[in-house]
Structures are given as structure tokens and as C-alpha cells.
């Protein structure tokens, strides 16, 4: 069998794992799919690990199933030839205008190209460790596996910034991102007294999507700090290089406001006996069955922070960490690259472009193309990416994260260990300077999520309590395994 035959996306579930690959891509969102497709075009052996059951990531989640209603998957299972046919089927549907939204159109194209690329694709696979030298570990079907990778492109996407309010741990309160997953994968639309609260583009997008599917929204509580446009105005001209972003945002807001009451507010609490019953908006009670919270997204740095030697810088506007990268996506550790939102929030189109750019650099590093070829091929992609990133400073200034200083003391920050903001502030008062010290005093961040959920909130509360920039506060030390795996799964590696 030729290399191309061995490494086809069609073999996914049953194929044995080889001992080594040229390129391992983490994540099958836009960045990961584009990186894998580009790398295959240069003859590299590519393995893609993704936690989800189908390609797309968060933004294009379940895009194939929604568009092709299962037909694509069934054909793909049979092999590469069928994959090409299926690709044709999707494209035919695209041509007929069966796809209503631009995002789905982008996602379907990326997924079809990825499926046909010959990259080995392992869905439902959770990466949990990267050792120096490129040994990668993941779990799949209840057993741990390992492979040696020459290079890594980490395209782990974004995570939602937590929005801790009093009562946010009650059943009936969830994040907008989680609700969007339910909407995209299971077609679950909000029913009853459903409230959206917080700020940021995803909140408005979800509202548009939910309303379009016939969902009902009782109201939107807009918690965004006042003065957004004034803060963002200096970046307006630059943002207009890609005016469709701002235009789309305005259209979303207008559509939603036509159907739903939007209430600006400063304080929000969730209350109920055993589950959510009502929300208090600046002291005014409303009946509530479901409360969806959102405060923007931050780069998912779980894996990069656990790799010794990868540097991270503090983004003072969005108050989050991002890995230190060059234009190609190289981290400070040779062979470890980052593409897409996990390197800095840029959206789906910028992510796909940075995935291709990173793959070209990987092809150069492995001697598949020359430096000149890389530069020639990536030039137009880098220009397109710059255009896609043009509106970011505007959006970042418009929607800064909500101030952690305003989180009431009784609010739980760490859900796993039930540690309140007040207890973290107390620990700071006792001399704790960073998240790793407050761990010892409060157990915050020591539960099963290891700070993956509460990390940004605990970090922000410590910084605010100390009166310093977040960049001066040491974040939770992240260690592999970055995702919980069972002892039994790990034991499987002992043979």
C-alpha cells in the first residue's frame, strides 16, 4: 500500500495507529481541518485527533450531518472514492442554495476537503499529554494510545470565559456555548422562560440561530460595560477593512431586538430551590426556567501551557493569556505550533487561514517544500488573514470582559471544590500572590476540571484583589494529563 492509501480519512475507527507521523494536528475545527488538508497536499503523513464525533469544531459543529442529513457520513465510511462522491454531493447542495448561512458553507467546504485529503482522522479522541520530543498521548474508546509526531499543530480553539454570578451553579443555568452545541447537534431550541445574559458576539449569534429555529427567548440581559463604542472608535477605520463583521453584528442585533426585549443591567443573580426558578436583574425578579450566560471566549491554552518551554503573553484588553507565536504559528518550542483561536481569537476564517499557513511552515521544516515555496504560497494567505483580523481590535475594545472586582463575595468561582470569590480574596489577604498559592489555601482549581473552567475567573479575582494587571499574576500551573483520564485507561499503555 502506498502512503496515501494508508492515511485516508475513511479508515478512521478501525485503522491501527502507526508508530509515528510527520504531523499531528489537534482539533478538527476550521484551523485543524485546513492545516491537515494543506499538509496532505505536500505529502506529509498526517494524524488528526478531535474530541468530537465529526469534523467542524465549535463553529462548524455537526455541519455535515446538518447539511447532508447523514448521507455523507454513510458514504465516507466506505473509503476515499466515496469521499470524493460525497464531497460532490455537498457541493451540489451548496450550489442549489440549500445552505442558508455563510458559516455553514465555509464549514462544509473545509470538511469535504478534509475528508478527501487522506489525513488519518480519529474522532472521539482526547489528547491528554505531549512529552518532550513529540510523543503524544490520547484516549479513545476507553484506552490510552500514543504516537511519535515530528511536528504538532495545536488547533484547540477557544473556550468560553466563565461568567460567575450568584447562583450560576444551579441546574437550569448554563453557558450560551453549551446551548449552541445542543442547538447544532440535537436541534434543541429554547422553550419556556429562557433568558440570555452577558455580552459578546456569540450571545447575539446564538439568539439569531435560536429564533430562526423557532425558539422563544424571554429576554436578553445586556451586562456589557457602558461606553463600548467610545472605547472601540479608534479601531473603527481598521475594522472597516472587513466591514462584513460589523455589518453582520449590527444585523444580528437588529433582528434580535425586533423579537426580544433587551435590558441593560449591572447586577444579575440566579435563584431557586434546588434549581433555577427566577433571576434578579438589578433587584427586579423575573420567572426563569433557563438562564444562558456568556462573557466572550478566550484562547484554549490548556495544552500549550502544560508544554515546558512554550511562552505565553498577557492580553491586557481581553485579559487572557495567549501563546507566544511567530507569524507562522511556531511557539518557542521547536516543532510545536499553534493555529486558530487557541493562538488568539480571530474567528473561523482567520483560523482556517492560519491552519494553512502553519501547515506550509511545517512542510518547509520537514523539507517537503523550500523556504521560497512556503513564502510564495503563504503570501496571499497572510494578506487574507490580516484582512480577517482587522476588526479584532475594535471588537476586543467593544467587549472587554466583565470586571472581576464586581463579583460578589458569595459567588462560587470554583465549581468542583465550591470555593467562593470571598474565600479567594481572603487567601489573597493572607499573602497569596497567585493561583497556585490560593490552591493550597482554598482547594480552588484542584477538582476534576483542574481550573479549566474557573481558571480565568480565579485569576481575574486575584488580580483585582491585588490591584495589579492579570499579567503579573501567575496562572494555575497546568500539568498533563490536561484532560482527566482513568487509571484503567492509562494502565492500558503498560501492556
Amino acid at each position, binding site marked *: 500500500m502506498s502512503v496515501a492509501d494508508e492515511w485516508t480519512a475513511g479508515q478512521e475507527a478501525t485503522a491501527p495507529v502507526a508508530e509515528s507521523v510527520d504531523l499531528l494536528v489537534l482539533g478538527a475545527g476550521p484551523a485543524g481541518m485546513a492545516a491537515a488538508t494543506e499538509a496532505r497536499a505536500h505529502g506529509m503523513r498526517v494524524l488528526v485527533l478531535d474530541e468530537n464525533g465529526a469534523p467542524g469544531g465549535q463553529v462548524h459543529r455537526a455541519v455535515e450531518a446538518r447539511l447532508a442529513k447523514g448521507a455523507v457520513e454513510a458514504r465516507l465510511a466506505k473509503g476515499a472514492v466515496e469521499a470524493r462522491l460525497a464531497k460532490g454531493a455537498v457541493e451540489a447542495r451548496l450550489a442549489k442554495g440549500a445552505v442558508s448561512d455563510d458559516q455553514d458553507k465555509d464549514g462544509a467546504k473545509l470538511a469535504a476537503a478534509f475528508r478527501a485529503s487522506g489525513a488519518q482522522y480519529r474522532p472521539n479522541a482526547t489528547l491528554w499529554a505531549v512529552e518532550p520530543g513529540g510523543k503524544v498521548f490520547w484516549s479513545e474508546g476507553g484506552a490510552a494510545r500514543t504516537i511519535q509526531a515530528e511536528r504538532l499543530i495545536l488547533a484547540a480553539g477557544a473556550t468560553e470565559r466563565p461568567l460567575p454570578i450568584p447562583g450560576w451553579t444551579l441546574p437550569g443555568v448554563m453557558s450560551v456555548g453549551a446551548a449552541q452545541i445542543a442547538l447544532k447537534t440535537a436541534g434543541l431550541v429554547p422553550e419556556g422562560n429562557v433568558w440570555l445574559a452577558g455580552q459578546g458576539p456569540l450571545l447575539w449569534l446564538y439568539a439569531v440561530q435560536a429564533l430562526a429555529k423557532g425558539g422563544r427567548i424571554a429576554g436578553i440581559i445586556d451586562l456589557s460595560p457602558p461606553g463600548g463604542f467610545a472605547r472601540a472608535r479608534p479601531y473603527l477605520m481598521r475594522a472597516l477593512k472587513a466591514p462584513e463583521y460589523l455589518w453582520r453584528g449590527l444585523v444580528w442585533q437588529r433582528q434580535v431586538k425586533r423579537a426580544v426585549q433587551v435590558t441593560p443591567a449591572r447586577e444579575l443573580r440566579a435563584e431557586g430551590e434546588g434549581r433555577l426558578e427566577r433571576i434578579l436583574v438589578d433587584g427586579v425578579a423575573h420567572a426563569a426556567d433557563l438562564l444562558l450566560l456568556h462573557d466572550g471566549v478566550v484562547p484554549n491554552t490548556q495544552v500549550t501551557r502544560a508544554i*515546558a518551554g512554550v511562552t505565553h503573553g498577557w492580553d491586557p484588553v481581553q485579559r487572557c493569556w495567549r501563546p507566544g507565536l511567530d507569524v507562522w504559528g511556531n511557539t518557542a518550542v521547536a516543532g510545536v505550533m499553534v493555529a486558530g483561536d487557541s493562538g488568539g481569537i480571530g474567528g473561523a476564517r482567520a483560523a482556517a487561514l492560519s491552519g494553512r499557513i502553519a501547515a506550509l511552515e511545517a512542510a518547509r521544516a520537514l523539507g517537503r517544500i523550500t523556504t521560497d515555496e512556503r513564502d510564495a504560497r503563504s503570501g496571499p494567505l497572510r494578506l487574507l488573514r490580516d484582512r480577517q483580523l482587522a476588526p479584532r481590535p475594535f471588537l476586543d475594545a467593544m467587549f472587554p470582559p466583565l470586571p472581576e472586582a464586581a463579583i460578589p463575595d458569595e459567588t462560587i468561582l470554583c465549581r468542583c471544590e465550591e470555593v467562593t470569590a470571598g474565600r479567594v480574596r481572603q487567601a489573597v489577604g493572607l499573602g497569596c500572590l497567585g493561583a497556585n498559592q490560593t490552591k*493550597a489555601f482554598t482547594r480552588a482549581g484542584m477538582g476534576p476540571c483542574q481550573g479549566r473552567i474557573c481558571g480565568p475567573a480565579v485569576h481575574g479575582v486575584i488580580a483585582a484583589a491585588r490591584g495589579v494587571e492579570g499579567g503579573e499574576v501567575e496562572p494555575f500551573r497546568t500539568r*498533563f*494529563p490536561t484532560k*482527566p483520564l*482513568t*487509571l*484503567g485507561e*492509562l*494502565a492500558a499503555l503498560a501492556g
Partner: protein
Amino acid sequence: MKKALVIGGGLHGLSTALHLARTPGWQVTLLERRHVGRHSSGVNAGGVRRLGRALPEIALSVIAAEMWHGIEALVGDDCGFRATGQVKVAESEADMAKNHARVAQVRALGWTHEEVVDQAEVRRLLPAVSRHVVGAIVTRDDGSADPMRTVMAFRRAAEQAGVVIREGVAVTGLDRTADGSIRVQTDQGEFEAERVANCAGAWAPDLAALAGETIPCGTKASMMIVTERLPHFVDPTVGATARALSFKQTAAGTVVIGGGHQGRNDKVAETSSVLFGSLAFAAQIAAQIFPCVAGARIIRTWTGTEARPPDDMPVIGESRSLPGLFHSFGFSGHGFQLSPAAGAAVAELMARGATNLPIAPFTQDRFTVPA
């Protein structure tokens, strides 16, 4: 007041400093390159164990055990010490034969803390243990403590006794002054003292070398696992006769698993990292001896760096090349329990040049080839 310096802010350095500061007439300063408890002291398994000690270590370990039972009187905190027992399980009749021989050997020396138990007793002690376990050695009043809490308690007690702790001070040279005291050069200037203790753990052999003495010593980076909280199912700390395991459930319900499986060590960068291919064996052994944990989620893994002489026993004794300098290092991953007694011994050596505590087997002279 006579001046003493202790180099190294791990548990052995803190214990040495504490005991010496409580000796009338001594002013003690402790120098720590990073921060107190940075390496293995703060992150070890916390075993308070006489069970299975190498024969030359038993005498000091028995004294340390008595000190652990009075730890609150020593440092003003119970250090999370719980005398829940230590059990070393036998998984075959061959293991049982070894256990009988071992306990007979220990008893012949006059020690009675180790006891062989049969299958019925091991099942009574460990209801969740796998059915294949046929017996065990037990030390009933051994147990475990919380390593970081212990480090913090020793630190507080040392400071209350007058020890000045200087963190972020790295030693770069050692020599003798004209008036006969020892000069310690650091990246923050010079210190002088009549007595100096070398408690620098994995980096202690390098300090010995600065003083002109070569002591054969490698390093260790034992790996540890902690799981999510589980319902309470085991009290004692558990090991195995034929396999590398240390296994205990904390008061919080998490299960801490070690056993000396080695990670990767970078002494120059002062870091160590986990090797999951090897750690998998720790998980496998744990899940075979306690099948109920196979489904438990691992939430964290880590390593700590530690010194390891060729015979896995510590080096305690005065420097041959720079008298007045006293070594205490190389505890090879089982120094946590010994720390109260070893610190007392080294402090006594420093203050009066001799001790009645049983440290004679640990002299570095054991590595010198007789002429």
C-alpha cells in the same frame, strides 16, 4: 552567639535549622535558591513508614516514628499525620515466603514493629483489596502526613525559633576564611559561619564538589498520580512486596499513587517531567491491587527531584575536605519520615561534633575504597 548556615530549604534543611536554633548559643540562617519546599519535600507521597526500611535505616526510622507521634509538640501543627498503618501486600506464596524471611530478620535485630498477617487479616484491614492478595506485612502505627503542610509547619516553627530564612539565594562557592570559619559565596553576596549544613537535595553533591569533595550520587524523579475524590474505601497506606507501589487515600478522598516509577530529570533546568509510558505501570499495579480504582479519573500527575546515592541510603556526616561543613542528603525518595530525627542528628553534630543518634551507617566513608 555562634553562627550557622543551612543550605537548602527542603524538609531536611528546615528540620536541621529548627533543631540547631533550639540549641542554646546558635544563630541560624537558612539559604534557599528558589522557595521553601520547591522540590521533593513539598510533593512527595507523605509516607510515614518504618515498614520495609533497609536494615541500617531502621534505628533512625524508629526514633523518627516516635517524633512523628509527637509532631504537634515539635512543630506546633499535626502536619496532617494520621497513624492509619502501613501494609505491604503479598500477591503470591513466594511473596509470603519473602515476607516471613524479612520479618524474621528484623525481629532478630530486636525490632518488633513489622508483623506478618494472613489473608483474613489483610482483607479485614483492606476490605477493597483484590482477592488475589494472600497476606501482608503490617506496621500498625505507621501512617502518612501531608507533605506541603509539614514543610510549612517546619518553616513556621524554625522561624519562631529564630531561624532567618532567605529565599532566592543561590550558593556559588564554599571555602575557608583566614580565621577558620567557612565562607559561603552566593549570588547575593557572602556569608560566613562556623558551621554549615549541606541539605541541598539533588544539588547537594554539587555543593560537596564546591568544597572539594566527591561523593557518588545520582538523582531520582519519582512520579505521582492523584485521582478525583472517591468515597472512603481504605485507611492504611499500601505497598506491595514484589512490585513498586505506594497507595493511599487522603482525608479529602483523593487517591495518591506512587511507588518510585521514574520520570525525566533535568538537574540543570531544575525541572522534572512525567513519562506516561512508565507511569502507566503505576496505574496498572494500583488498579490490579485495588480494582475499584480502575474507573477513577486521574486529575494530576507530577514528579519531584531528589538525590540518590548508589546504595539508596542517605549521606550524613562531616565533610572530609572542609571540616565544619556537614552533609545531609541523598534520602533517595524515603527521607520524609526520617526528617525530624535526621535534622536533630545533624544539628547535634554541628553544635557539639557528635551525636548518639544512630547515623553511623550513613557516613560518606562507605564509598571510599580502602587503600
